[in-house]
């Protein structure tokens, strides 16, 4: 396949431009030589014109390429480039003039051939200057371009292209059609020259540079224009290349734009500090909003805040007070003021209205700037801006100026914006930290959940006479419900169910204490009543004042087919009697553990026994089950539970447990979340 070589347009166009210029020079010199020696070898001027157009285009292509590829694209570099080309062209032209001046009246001075060569040199450099300048102007004009400006510029370029060929109609003489074309292009150029959006972005120093360069460009353009006019005025012998519509339009355009830029930059000088200030404010604002990154702290934001406020309001002294507690604050970021000076000022400010009205406690301090004057020798005006985070006033920025009424509305606006942004940054930072902390807590809770789950037994002790099945679910990550079994001896089992007051983590800790107590006491093989009395005594030393535990303790003897039981404030056990085929709650009094923490407790616990037959069922549960509420705030209640058992008594223990839980969930509905722990233990005698 044919492959296009990677062409270097810059080098090629430069080479072609030089070649074209040389051939143009050669053609014109030959023609002049023939004319002078009355030879009949006159070459048509059209050839020169064509070469001239090619030269224009190639120079245009070269500069377009070179400017687009240029790395340095800031405005001053561009203008400097235009200025330096202008200076080079002008200096060369001046040298030529000096050269002729030094020749005086000698023969060489009037030699038309030599003069024509210099004319070509001047023409070449003027073209280079004008074209490069035009293209640099293009960059400036199209800064922050709109579609309209781009179209306008394209139309201008088309106009310039057409103007190159105008030479074929009027042979570079200044006739009326020429003047018409010229005025059209000049007006067009002038209309483009109002696009000066780049000027405000220059700094004060750059503006001065720009003014100087623009003056140089104006001078170069004017000098070259006059120089070229003098050439063409005194010339009859050789071909006029310079009274060209394209070239003269460029002169006009370059000059007009330089004048416009010069004047606008000059008038922009006094206001440039305001623009610079606004730019600094915008940057500060951005710094404030992005300032807290991982690893940084709030102090850095406040530091930036101080700098921003100070530069925005031309402040002479400032400090920032941070609230530590109700009546104490700490001063950080103190600027241009000594400690003793600051203390005096603090006292003065706090006793001067309106600053004395400042209240740290007030809820709506947000964006409430206090501004006023103080009776101080040095500082005359003060503002206080509160830092409000999450409706809490956490600090205040105090700014002082040596002039009276030094803070105008705009300054206060920008200060309040800065402070607001800083507060948002700090708040975001705190929220982020909190979120990270919460994430850790969540993980810790998951561990607690796993540990607590393991506190509930996975298998329950029993023999072939009865089935036992348990279920427990916590409303939060961890809960306070507890059940367990233990073998006491041959055919004897202990069963316990308990519920710790409150819920969540505190309940979970107390539940694990209960487990410890159960395992200790069960070794002693106590009666249910003894168990509760001892447990109450033990818990009296463990439980917080306002916590208690409800529990029920059973000893099942499968040989004698009876149970002994005691209740300590726990929900009564539901019993299904297979002989009468009825469900009843076992009634027995008993006070919760930890309620009465002295000997009197013994008086409030009782013990009963119950004989059990085949198919008798015991349902032990916690209050979460009967207190489960549906969306109408109705409780599941003891009656519903009773009905469920009556209905499903023929099922196995596991199935009954499942049915009860299903019924409870069905009752509360999907929309409500369980707000208590649910636990249930079903015991069924199968023999």
């Amino acid at each position: 396949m044919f492959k296009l070589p990677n062409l270097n347009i810059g080098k090629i166009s430069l080479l072609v431009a030089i070649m074209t210029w040389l051939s143009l020079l050669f053609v014109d010199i030959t023609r002049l030589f023939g004319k002078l020696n009355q030879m009949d070898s006159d070459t048509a001027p059209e050839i020169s014109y064509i070469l001239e157009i090619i030269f224009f285009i190639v120079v245009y292509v070269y500069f377009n390429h070179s400017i687009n590829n240029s790395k340095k694209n800031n405005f001053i570099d561009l203008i400097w480039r235009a200025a330096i080309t202008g200076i080079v062209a002008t200096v060369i032209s001046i040298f030529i003039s000096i050269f002729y001046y030094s020749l005086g009246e000698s023969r060489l001075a009037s030699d038309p051939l030599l003069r024509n060569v210099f004319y070509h040199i001047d023409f070449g450099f003027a073209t280079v200057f004008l074209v490069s300048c035009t293209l640099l102007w293009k960059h400036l004009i199209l800064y922050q371009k709109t579609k309209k400006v781009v179209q306008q510029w394209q139309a201008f370029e088309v106009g310039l292209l057409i103007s190159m060929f105008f030479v074929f109609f009027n042979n570079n003489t200044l006739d009326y059609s020429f003047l018409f074309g010229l005025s059209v292009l000049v007006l067009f150029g002038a209309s483009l020259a109002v696009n000066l959006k780049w000027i405000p972005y220059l700094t004060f120093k750059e503006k001065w540079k720009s003014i100087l360069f623009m003056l140089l460009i104006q001078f170069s353009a004017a000098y070259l224009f006059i120089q070229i006019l003098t050439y063409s005025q005194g010339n009859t012998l050789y071909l006029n290349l310079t009274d060209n519509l394209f070239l003269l339009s460029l002169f006009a355009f370059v000059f007009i734009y330089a004048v416009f830029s010069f004047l606008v930059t000059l008038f922009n000088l006094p206001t440039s500090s305001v623009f610079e200030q606004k730019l600094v404010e915008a940057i500060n604002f951005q710094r404030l909003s992005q300032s807290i990154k991982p690893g940084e702290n709030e102090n850095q934001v406040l530091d930036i805040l101080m700098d921003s406020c100070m530069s925005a309001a031309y402040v002479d002294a400032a400090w920032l007070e941070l609230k530590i507690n109700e009546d104490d604050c700490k001063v950080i970021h103190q600027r241009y003021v000594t400690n003793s000076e600051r203390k005096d000022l603090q006292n003065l400010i706090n006793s001067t209205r309106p600053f004395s009205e400042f209240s740290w406690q007030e809820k709506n301090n947000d964006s409430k700037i206090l501004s006023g004057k103080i009776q101080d020798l040095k500082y005359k005006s003060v503002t206080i801006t509160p830092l409000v985070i999450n409706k809490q006033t956490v600090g205040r920025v105090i700014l002082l100026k040596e002039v009276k009424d030094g803070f105008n509305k705009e300054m206060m606006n920008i200060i309040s914006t800065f402070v607001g942004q800083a507060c948002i940054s700090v708040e975001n930072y705190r929220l982020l930290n909190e979120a990270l902390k919460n994430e850790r807590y969540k993980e810790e809770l998951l561990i607690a959940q796993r540990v607590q789950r393991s506190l509930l037994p996975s298998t329950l002790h029993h023999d072939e006479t009865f089935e036992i099945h348990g279920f427990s679910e916590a409303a939060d990550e961890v809960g306070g419900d507890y059940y367990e079994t233990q073998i006491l001896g041959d055919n004897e089992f202990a069963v316990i169910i308990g519920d710790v007051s409150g819920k969540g983590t505190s309940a979970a800790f107390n539940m694990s204490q209960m487990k410890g107590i159960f395992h200790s006491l069960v070794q002693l093989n106590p009666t249910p009543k003894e168990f509760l009395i001892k447990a109450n005594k033990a818990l009296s030393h463990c439980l917080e004042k306002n916590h208690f535990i409800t529990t029920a303790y059973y000893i099942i003897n499968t040989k004698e087919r009876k149970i002994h039981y005691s209740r300590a404030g726990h929900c009564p056990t539901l019993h299904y009697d297979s002989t009468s085929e009825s469900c009843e709650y076992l009634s027995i009094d008993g006070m919760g553990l930890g309620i009465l923490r002295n000997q009197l407790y013994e008086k409030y616990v009782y013990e009963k026994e119950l004989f059990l037959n085949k198919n008798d069922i015991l349902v032990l549960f916690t209050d979460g089950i009967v207190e489960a509420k549906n969306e109408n705030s109705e409780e599941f209640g003891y009656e519903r539970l009773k009905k469920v058992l009556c209905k499903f008594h023929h099922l196995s223990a596991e199935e009954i447990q499942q049915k009860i839980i299903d019924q409870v969930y069905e009752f509360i509905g999907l929309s409500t979340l369980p707000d208590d722990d649910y636990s249930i233990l079903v015991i069924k005698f199968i023999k």
Partner: protein
Amino acid sequence: MLKIETSKKSNYTEIKLIGEVDASNSVELDEAIVALVENDTKNILVDGTQLEYISSAGLGVFMSYIEDFNDKKISLVIFGLNEKVFHVFQILGLDQLINIKSNKEDAVMEL
């Protein structure tokens, strides 16, 4: 939701509980009682006519003051509990330690 209205009467102070006492707001109940104790109130009447529910945390608040009140000779009487709420006190055995009356007249008589 729980609303607590405290009103000072000639020889006693009445706390009216409206709504539900649960783990999230039992602290409010505790604060209300602490405030009364600090004011040297000797007779406290708790109006439970509009108390719809009390959780174990709420019961814990009442429980925690039993011994304290006995020592300081402060009498606390609860009245007007609905059947369901009274049942909760009863199951736990608190009805044996706290004076609970069915209506205000009986409760005032107890003071």
